[in-house]
């Protein structure tokens, strides 16, 4: 699974980096960023889904790979 933030939609609510700090971070203005290459480590899928389902702007896409 790979996480992606649509920077056109993200408004910096920060739900993603509150709920899944291993997967998401913030920039100097508080907008969400994907940590590393965005690949969600094995076992962390539920955290990624929790973050995505709490983003008020629906800015997080989770791409199932493979």
């Amino acid at each position: 699974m790979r996480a992606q933030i649509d920077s056109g939609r993200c408004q910096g609510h920060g739900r993603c980096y509150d709920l899944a700090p291993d997967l998401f971070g913030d920039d100097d203005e508080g907008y969400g960023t994907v940590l590393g290459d965005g690949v969600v480590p094995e076992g962390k899928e539920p955290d990624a889904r929790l973050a995505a389902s709490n983003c008020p702007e629906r800015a997080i896409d989770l791409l199932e790979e493979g």
Partner: protein
Amino acid sequence: MTERSEGIKRHGPVVTPSDEGGLMTDRFAKNYAELRDDQPLGTRNEIVTGPVEDWATDFSHLEPEWAADPYPIQDDLRQRCPIAHTDRFGGGWLPTRYEDVAAIAYDTERFSSRSVIMSNFRPPRELAPVGGTPPISSDPPFHQHARRLLLPAFTKTAVGRLEPATRAFCHSLIDGFAGQDVVDAARDYAQHIPMRVIGDMLGFPPEDGPRFREFVENTLEGVNLPPEERIARMEQLFDYLLEQIRDHVANPREDLTTYLIEAEFGGEKLQPSHVAGTMALLLIAGIDTTWSAIGASLWHLAKTPADRERLVADPGLLPTAMEEFLRAYAPVTMARLVKEDMHWAGVDMKAEDWVLLSFPAANRDPAQFDRADEVVIDRQVNRHAAFGLGIHRCVGSHLARMELRVALEIWLERIPAFSLDDPSAVTWAAGQVRGPRTLPLRVG
């Protein structure tokens, strides 16, 4: 029908690109009345108060019935008339579905933020896209400049640095309750926390707290008062801010006031009215809102022993529960002005009509949330809109969440058992920021 007249001068200094006077060294020399004299006129309508006949055709968010319990009214409207209308305030609309609230928040082309407080006064159209209190009153493209100035000071990391002082302050408030059986949690606890935090960020003297409270109440709760009185109240606020600004010009410090005085964009310093307007916004937006969120959460816990006991036993659940309190008791409703006549979602909106943008109503729409009318403190999926949606997302949301978490955590740790002393003594603020203003809790 109400009638609009070109009457009173707008209260606030208006930022116009041609206003050169503001850029000199004594750019903060003018007082509020002098700044106001340069302003174009706004539009006023007749003030209509009194009991609402039918909420679908005559709503008013300033009547006591709404203040006491707006949710049944909103739930009823969502079913029977999802975009309600009123002739009060010179004409306005009230959408109650999440979908419509979101669409309007995103549609900055057709809905302006030139005024976000639905009242009997429409600021002059020339005020757009800046507005009296940037960035909340600003439209694109100006909005993003005013907003970007503030963002770095309000990131989660930046506000995290204020947490230790906030914790110590909450403890000191509770130390002050020693020996009391009943405590007014709204007046003697919730209110003081955001006041101290934002006062410190702006670099205002801590003993001025009670004065800010007065300014905030005046702005948000005096909406139906006569204009002369409102102007006099605004004057007090702005003259206070200008006094603080001049003191910071003379003695620069590491705080938000000095930051705004020094800030530039496009190679120029900000207009005095922008500096003062943004400071007013931070005071007003930062205090009432967070005070309401802390108060409403404590009110819920005082009347719901099962939730209180669960949080005392499992403080790790607090961040999740807090989001649910923000959803169910969202304190903030905003407004927009319709830019041009149009047919929108089945209704005929006219230019200059208000839209009361109820994030609280959106947050209780069953089409968006399961068990929308219940408070479920372990709700996992909670895409609520308490901090708005789209480009005006609350700049202070990370600060507000820190304050709310710390305030509740320390209260529950120090006062794990509490209940409503007298449910009928609880009072709620009327208007667009809703929360308890009197909240007597039995703590002994």
